[in-house]
């Protein structure tokens, strides 16, 4: 019996994509990377909805292609002097002394090209994984899944995401309108001619939106008293400070060890306590929230497993994870698993809901 069509929890798709991206970031094996790209492509085509953001996948693919092309070009332009078999003998451009160690053009070796290609492919795979998450899960729904205490931040982000396309519209409109009248043509004054109406329009819109949200109850005070609110604020702030110090100490080996892991843990705990405390008093409810069901968990598990296998490969089968540019890359059984396991997401996730169908 196949599952009824529905939208999967957006966080599940993001975790799945992050798992695949992790695996991709831990290897330069082109066969493995291509397998991951292929898997992502199949999952996106079978599981994306017909909403506007779902169409963005193609854009990310092109971005990935651009990353590969740029990386290879980079190697050609700056990669002179890479040892190996010369495939294209370009003249070297002499550079002044102060850019010591950098050569422009020069003989291009097959190894340099391959290294660029592998590197670019890895970057492209990461980009495509992010693109997949974006087109599988509505980014706005993702923001709506934030914990209640972060609701305000989430709404601000949603509004920001919505306002951007409106800003472009407003810019186009003002451009067209200003062409209808005579006026200043100087460089600075022309900018002003264009900016003033756009900014006015933006302010008006923002005010209208703020008024609209306010009259519909956004930011209604819960039952919290002023003291409670202050406590929550202090907890969250202190926690975040702790996290920052902890991360810093973890990265800077010279810092006292007491500030590292222990501080990070304490900071996180305090921040979480603050958020929980804030969330408890929030009187807001959520309309048709995305729920975690077995399918979501399965998709997340698939993603995590791909990530973990990639990590294992990175540690135990170095020759496969980072093949030498002089030899043909090979694939082991584990690598094959890393490459293809992501596909299981298609099997465990329900088909997407079509427009107009029940959610």
């Amino acid at each position, binding site marked *: 019996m196949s599952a009824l069509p529905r939208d999967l929890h957006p966080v599940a798709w993001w975790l799945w994509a992050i798992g695949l991206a992790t695996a991709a970031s831990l290897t330069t094996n082109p066969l493995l990377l291509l397998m991951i790209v292929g898997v992502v492509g199949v999952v996106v085509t079978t599981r994306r909805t017909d909403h506007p953001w779902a169409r963005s996948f193609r854009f990310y693919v092109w971005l990935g292609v651009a990353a590969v092309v740029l990386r290879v070009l980079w190697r050609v332009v700056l990669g002179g002097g890479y040892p190996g078999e010369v495939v294209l003998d370009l003249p070297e451009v002499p550079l002044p002394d102060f850019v010591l160690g950098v050569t422009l053009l020069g003989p291009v070796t097959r190894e340099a090209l391959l290294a660029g290609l592998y590197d670019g492919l890895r970057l492209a795979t990461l980009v495509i994984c992010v693109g997949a998450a974006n087109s599988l899960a509505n980014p*706005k729904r993702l923001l709506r899944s934030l914990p209640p205490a972060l609701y305000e931040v989430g709404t601000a982000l949603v509004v920001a995401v919505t306002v951007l396309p409106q800003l472009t519209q407003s810019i186009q409109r003002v451009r067209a309108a200003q062409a*209808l*009248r*005579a006026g200043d043509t100087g460089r600075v004054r022309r900018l002003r001619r264009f900016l003033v109406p756009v900014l006015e329009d933006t302010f008006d819109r923002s005010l209208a*939106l*703020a008024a*609209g949200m306010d009259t*519909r109850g956004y930011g209604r005070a819960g039952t919290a008293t002023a003291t409670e609110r202050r406590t929550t604020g202090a907890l969250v702030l202190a926690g975040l400070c702790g996290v920052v110090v902890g991360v810093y100490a973890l990265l800077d080996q010279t810092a006292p060890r007491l500030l590292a892991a222990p501080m990070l843990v304490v900071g996180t705990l305090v921040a979480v306590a603050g958020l929980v405390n804030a969330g408890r008093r929030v009187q807001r*409810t959520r309309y048709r929230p995305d729920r975690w069901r077995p399918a979501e968990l399965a998709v997340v598990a698939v993603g995590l497993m791909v990530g973990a296998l990639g990590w294992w490969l990175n540690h135990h089968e170095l020759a496969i994870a980072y093949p030498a540019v002089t030899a043909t890359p090979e694939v082991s059984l584990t690598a094959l698993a890393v490459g293809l396991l992501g596909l299981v997401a298609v099997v465990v996730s329900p088909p997407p809901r079509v427009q107009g169908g029940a959610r």
Partner: protein
Amino acid sequence: MRPLLELRGITLSYDESTVLDAVDLTVEEGELVLVSGPTGVGKSTLLGVVTGLVPRFSGGVLRGDVLLDGVSIVDAPPRERAHAIGYVGQDPAAAFVTDTAEDELAYGMEQLGLPPETMRRRVEETLDLLGIAHLRDRDLHTLSGGEQQRVAIGSVLTMHPRLLVLDEPTSALDPTAAEDVLATLTRLVHDLGVSVLLAEHRLERVVPFADRMVLMPGGGRRVEVGDPADLLAHSPVVPPIVELGRRAGWSPLPLTVRDARRAARTLTLPAPPDVADLADEPLLLATGIGVVHGSTVALREVDVTLHAGRVTALMGRNGAGKSTLLWALQGTRKRRAGAIDLDGDDTAALDPAGRRGRVALLPQTAADLLYLETVAEECAAGGAGTREILDRLVPGIDDATHPRDLSEGQRLALALALVLAPAPRVVLLDEPTRGLDYNAKGELARILRTLAADGHAVLVATHDVEFVASVADEVVVLAEGEVVSSGPTRRVVAESPAFAPQVMKVLGAPWLRVDELEVALT
């Protein structure tokens, strides 16, 4: 019985000016109260006081008290009034928070913290009540104006407010969409007992539905509250039907077309007015215009001829392609097919400066044209002659005034002067009557007639049937990007009831305006 809402001695003043002066008003359960008056007398401000947006979003000093069910709420911010007072602003699209209709309907309830089952039930009920169930998954910004307005109303209705406050709910809508929205509101008042407080310029649309009326005459006179028929007898702004009734001396004043028809039976009509031949001097010839927007056809094989000395009205529902046609005629909008001939030139082939000299276009948001601090600076930047044109259009605007401080009508005239400065012979206007009261519209009509008399060819896109009746020589109606009818105003508006002005609905064709009957009535 205690009134639902009570305003006591509401006074709002900015530094030197007083906008509202000791206004008293009560709104009972289940009645529709209409706020009317000339532009700029503070109608929106009064609504803002009720919702709490004034003075929080506008500044100013507020005195007096606002009581909801006898409890003072004057110090409560809008969000704390949200459960009882729903507000829909002038531009509903600007206030949308989410991206689909269904989520938008649920947004307010989420803020109130209603249980999920209740939210689910109310969303479905409201979708059905407003007839927007088919729009639930649509992107809000792709909806038409009327649909957006109904979603906006729905999004506050789900909170089950006792009072609905609407600021010009129909001013941006075509006649049919406006009727839909008003029918919805009437249904809410009658079936659900919701009270409605609404401000509107287009009285001809709303007066028949109003139980009571708040008249804000402006100019320092006191705000009056009472029965629409009583107040309209001496209101400075009246719909054509009331003007007809006043001139004919009917008492009580008819407010609906039905009543007016009955009263008009006794009227002996003179011979129909002579229809003067229209000036026949083609200036701009557009044939077979086709414009494509993405994969949708915005205009298909549109033929339009603009004659010097004629005012042509361009009508059609929201999204029928009116704006696109204006921009295509002006030459900025690239067309896929067709030809434009303006004295042998194609406007699309000209550069922006060349277009300015041949075709003036006043865009929908006239404020997009303005960017300087004073009227004098704007006129100087507009080139020689701008000030003279402005003085001829609307005399007596102070040089030092900031364009944003001008009244709607004055700002429109300033923008119009700027586009007319390079002396073009073709004038295109996109929805110039939005937000204008009857006097300002009369003024605009006079300006357009003057332009036509000076040998300009004028094309004005508008939803306002009364404005069309007062100014246009001929009408072109667009639907789905195609011309569905065109010809002299009298014939075209007589053919379709949606576009017929009130006078024609009462007296029948060929009568368009009250002033045509002047002789007969006196």
